[in-house]
């Protein structure tokens, strides 16, 4: 009897159910985000912390500089690892220089120049195990000097370092709120991790000497030619006289273009890579104030550049921070630097840093790894070897050893015999 009643009322029941509940089916959407609060330290204490520490594990790779038997590998915003590369088949991480806020560096003789947020810090590296900060030039990189703004510092004036607070870290906590994403999203641009990575090449056969200058890699933003240190900011090129190595003296700043990325020295020329092209400066006539002598424009992209006597090699990649759309190597004729012109382009996966040793061209192709070409004929690059074992950012190729900075560490390849290029170590 009951069953028949149910049978009779089932359809009515179902419709009643639908009526009752269809309007109650609300989506519950929550958004969890992080509230980040800065941790401050007074500038005087902050500066005291810039010194050698015992070796630490390399967690994030940055820029490299090689001089003598040592590799200096930066860990972005934390400091610089010092690696004893006496035996490239077995490099040893021997020390760490704590430099909060550091992104770039350059080395000549026993002096290392590094940025520490907005300051230029000069360090004595004559004993790599006991590096000492010798000088601080305040607020010379205003793009990164967030704390000077809040302290009301006026450039060129003296100030009390105890009166300036520096952000040395952040504390974070999560919070969850109701959220209605609607039909659209806020527009964000992806990071361009490789845009801020970079460094330099150098000799592997001898210890650092007073007169030797480390060679910087294609993604570096610091460079040294003779007695001058050149650095690039977001839109400018700044020069320091380092005749007195521990006391760099500001000499000039010239405007370049927006979104300056890299600087590369070639004899008495500087090649400045920007999102929109390559700007070439002469530093022979007036080294203290580089003079623009040529430029080559390209479609917007992230673009490290290197050069030899005849050609500039520009890698363009499509990192979204640069709003790029191309992944190419472009070769530019610079025989007449004031009338440079495009010669040839090659397609790549995501090219970043590059290096050239003789006719051998080394290209870090992002996640596609390292590619080595015979570039004796720039119209017909011949692939000699490729290694796809890492996501590579930058490379220094000298004396038969290619030192590669990758997301997963530092790799070294022996290319002394082109028919037998092989990996010899990973750190």
């Amino acid at each position: 009897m009951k069953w028949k009643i149910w049978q009779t009322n089932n359809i009515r029941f179902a419709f009643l159910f639908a009526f009752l509940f269809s309007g109650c089916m609300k989506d519950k959407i929550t958004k969890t985000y992080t509230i980040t609060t800065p941790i401050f330290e007074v500038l005087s204490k902050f500066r005291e912390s810039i010194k050698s520490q015992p070796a630490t594990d390399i967690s994030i790779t940055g820029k490299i500089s090689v001089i003598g038997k040592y590799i200096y590998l930066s860990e972005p915003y934390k400091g610089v690892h010092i690696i004893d590369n006496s035996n490239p088949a077995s490099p040893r991480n021997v020390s760490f220089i704590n430099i909060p806020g550091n992104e770039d560096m350059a080395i000549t003789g026993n002096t290392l120049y590094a940025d520490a947020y907005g300051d230029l810090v000069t360090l004595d590296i004559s004993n790599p195990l006991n590096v000492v900060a010798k000088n601080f030039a305040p607020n010379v990189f205003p793009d990164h000097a967030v704390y000077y703004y809040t302290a009301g510092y006026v450039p060129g004036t003296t100030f009390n370092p105890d009166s300036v607070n520096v952000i040395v870290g952040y504390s974070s906590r999560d919070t969850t709120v109701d959220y209605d994403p609607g039909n659209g999203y806020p527009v964000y641009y992806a990071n361009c991790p490789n845009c801020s990575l970079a460094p330099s090449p150098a000799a592997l056969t001898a210890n650092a000497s007073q007169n030797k200058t480390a060679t910087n890699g294609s993604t570096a933003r610091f460079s040294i030619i003779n007695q001058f240190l050149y650095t690039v900011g977001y839109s400018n090129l700044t020069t320091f006289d380092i005749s007195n190595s521990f006391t760099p003296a500001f000499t000039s700043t010239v405007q370049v273009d927006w979104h300056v990325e890299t600087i590369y020295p070639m004899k008495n020329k500087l090649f400045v890579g920007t999102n929109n092209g390559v700007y070439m400066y002469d530093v022979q006539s007036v080294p203290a104030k580089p003079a623009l002598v040529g430029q080559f424009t390209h479609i917007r992209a992230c673009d490290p550049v290197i050069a030899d006597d005849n050609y500039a090699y520009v890698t363009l990649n499509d990192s979204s921070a640069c709003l790029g759309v191309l992944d190419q190597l472009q070769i530019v004729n610079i025989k007449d630097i004031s009338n440079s012109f495009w010669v040839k382009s090659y397609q790549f996966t995501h090219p970043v840093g590059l290096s050239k040793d003789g006719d051998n061209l080394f290209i870090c192709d992002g996640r596609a790894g390292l590619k080595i070409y015979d570039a004796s004929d720039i119209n017909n690059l011949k692939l000699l070897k490729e290694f796809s074992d890492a996501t590579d950012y930058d490379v220094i190729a000298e004396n038969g050893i290619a030192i590669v900075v990758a997301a997963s560490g530092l790799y070294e390849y022996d290319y002394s015999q082109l028919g037998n290029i092989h990996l010899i170590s990973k750190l």
Partner: protein
Amino acid sequence: MFKMKCPIFICIILCTAAELSAQQKTLPDRWQFHSVNNVGLLEGQTGSSFQLQTINGAQYRSWFAGIGLGLDFYRYRTIPLFLDIRQEFGRSTKKLIVYADIGINFCWLTDNEKTTYLANDKFNKGLYADFGLGYKIGLGKTNNLLLTIGYSLKKLKETYETPEYYYPPNYPPDKEQINYHLNRLSIKIGWEF
């Protein structure tokens, strides 16, 4: 409102099952393969969306258990993979059925649903559940028409990073997470054989 009514709905289903279980007569004591194939609508705050399911399993007496695979187009296209358990009541050509599904939603976003302007935007799999009741109408010896209505839940988690482009140096990467808890009315028509 929903929080208040959902327990009522569960009670109705359980009471119905308990009351009617006393009514059923003995069914054959052997396992029989059955395939249930449904199409239907998912009705919720986002709107109406299409769904598709195939459930394959075995029936023993009035109980059926099977594994289901589907397509769920509500808000984001997903593939639910789930365990289905159902019981039928009555012996006539029209039977009442009560079912419960639980499993996992795997994301299979359409090109329009994928965002290209968020850094590392990822959708993670989440819970899938559907329970309700309906009719099973006999169409010949082995075929049945199914009409069901129920509550369906789809959970998804989206994570992405916000950029540090204009932030101070060393600013930690901001990762944000959106949790979707999507409540739907599930209306299905199916064919069982």
